[in-house]
């Protein structure tokens, strides 16, 4: 899932200046002044009600109200979820999966949520690739990745994963996430195979680490949910893993539908 700016939603300083009539500086629910804290609690409650009122009919106004509620209570998960739901501009990066058979669409799926789900493309046995010829038939040419090409693709993916791990260890988390993106794109372009699972696992673990280090707990949890989808019994080494990562893994495991 790639919702634009989701990580930077809570309580950005530029967003959280007091509006006309509001106390300055804008209080938060943990303000040391009990009355300002009380105001923040009540105001957040009011904004949540308003956001819910507006969400169906005026999602942009609802988005603003959710964000405002986050300014007052940055730890409010409901407000974060609401702000994410109503983002006026969202970016989705579904993985592209080449599969021997395209699975049927799940019934009753929320089409908006499904914009993030991987796009499966059928691999048709016997179809010929015309890569480099610049022509695509009207029915669409299934991509065939021949063995040498696949091996080279895997080497590139491995280099990206190794780079991501090194960068994460060196606390260069943004670079690590860029390497993760390259690795994911490389993996997504490869036909599914048993040799890919371990690579996906490494990618998602390093992505979770980098996202958590950047303070993007939701993204980190989503990565760990994918880890659990690959390896349901996955566990961190408690001695060498931060309590935060342990908690995120527990949270990912506790999500509805999580692999157990």
């Amino acid at each position, binding site marked *: 899932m790639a919702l634009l*700016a989701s990580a930077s939603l809570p309580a950005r300083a530029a967003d959280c200046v007091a509006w006309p009539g509001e*106390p300055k500086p804008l209080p938060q629910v943990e303000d040391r002044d009990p009355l300002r804290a009380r105001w923040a609690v009540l105001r957040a409650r009011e904004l949540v009600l308003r956001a819910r009122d507006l969400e*169906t009919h005026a999602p942009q106004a609802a988005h603003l109200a959710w964000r405002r509620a986050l300014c007052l209570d940055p730890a409010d998960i409901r407000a974060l979820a609401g702000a994410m739901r109503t983002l006026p501009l969202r970016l*989705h*990066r579904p993985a592209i999966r080449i599969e021997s058979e395209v699975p049927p669409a799940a019934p009753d799926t929320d089409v908006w949520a499904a914009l993030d789900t991987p*796009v499966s493309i059928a691999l048709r046995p016997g179809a010929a690739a015309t890569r480099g010829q610049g022509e695509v038939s009207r*029915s669409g040419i299934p991509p065939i990745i021949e063995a040498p090409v696949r091996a080279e693709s895997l080497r590139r993916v491995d280099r990206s994963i190794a780079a991501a791990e090194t960068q994460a260890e060196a606390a260069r988390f943004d670079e690590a996430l860029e390497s993760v993106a390259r690795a994911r794109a490389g993996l997504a372009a490869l036909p599914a195979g048993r040799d890919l699972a371990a690579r996906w696992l490494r990618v998602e673990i390093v992505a979770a680490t980098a996202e958590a280090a950047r303070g993007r707990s939701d993204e980190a949890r989503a990565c760990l949910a994918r880890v659990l989808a690959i390896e349901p019994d996955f566990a961190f080494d408690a001695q060498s893993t931060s309590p935060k990562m342990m908690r995120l893994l527990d949270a990912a495991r506790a999500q509805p539908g999580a692999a157990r």
Partner: protein
Amino acid sequence: MRGFARGLLVALLASACQAPPPLAPPAEISIEILPGLAAREAPPEPEPERVEVLLDVTTSLRDGPAGVEKLLAARTAAARFVRGLPDTTALNVRTLGLIPGRSCETASLLAPRRGAHAHAALAAQIESLAPVGEGSLAVALAELRGVLASAGSLEHSRVVVFSDLGSECGGDLCTAAELLLDAGARLDFVVLGDAKAPACFGALVSSERWRQAPVLDAPDYRIVAYDPSPGRVPFVLAEGRANATRQRLPAGPVMVELGLDPPARIGPLVLSPGTLTRMRVVEFPALQPPVREWTWTTLPLPVKEGGAQ
């Protein structure tokens, strides 16, 4: 004369009873409202949402090592989305790359379908699209904005773009997106491939261009001398706007009256000489139930040199 003297005495005594209390050394007070929304507004009337799909199937999607996958993925993702929308949702699909040629062409509208399975038919059409030309995503979005604006449908439109964000034909994607957002539309970019999104997209999200919900205005107040005697006309010591401005007034017991709805009477409280009493009122009339809470604190006023306050 005796009658006149007695009358004068009665008049003097009466006026003495209604005279203001003797002036005490001054105190100060500030009153501040910490307001909530003035009122809970009714949500706007619902209007049907319309969806505009802009599908980039330009020839550039098949360029590069992952080109075939991107093209197929764009078609597949768009078809999946269209097929999943209820047939009751108003839908238009525009495509970029279906006009043959080497120049950058405009987007073209796929013929809308009506009735049952209309979206399934559109989805099938999408799956068979093949690129024959090029076009600018930014220009296509700007054109789409114009179309929606002329139809008066911007505020209730969701625009979904399937693209690899190729910029072969140029155009300012940031401005195009911003114009759509400013007009109230919502935008979803489904990016196939690993092209970076323009950095401006993050800034567009943070813009506060939407209407702010008004909070309660600071009400007027008046401070009257506290006198519990029945039938007494309140003697007003000070009046003002409850915006935290400090006000000097005689020390002594007072009641504070705030022009809220319903009005608030706070007190009695004793204003001591040489002190500042800071009163704050939390007022949320739009909550159910409404909330009104107050507190006050008293601080010594700084003593100026020479003993004067």
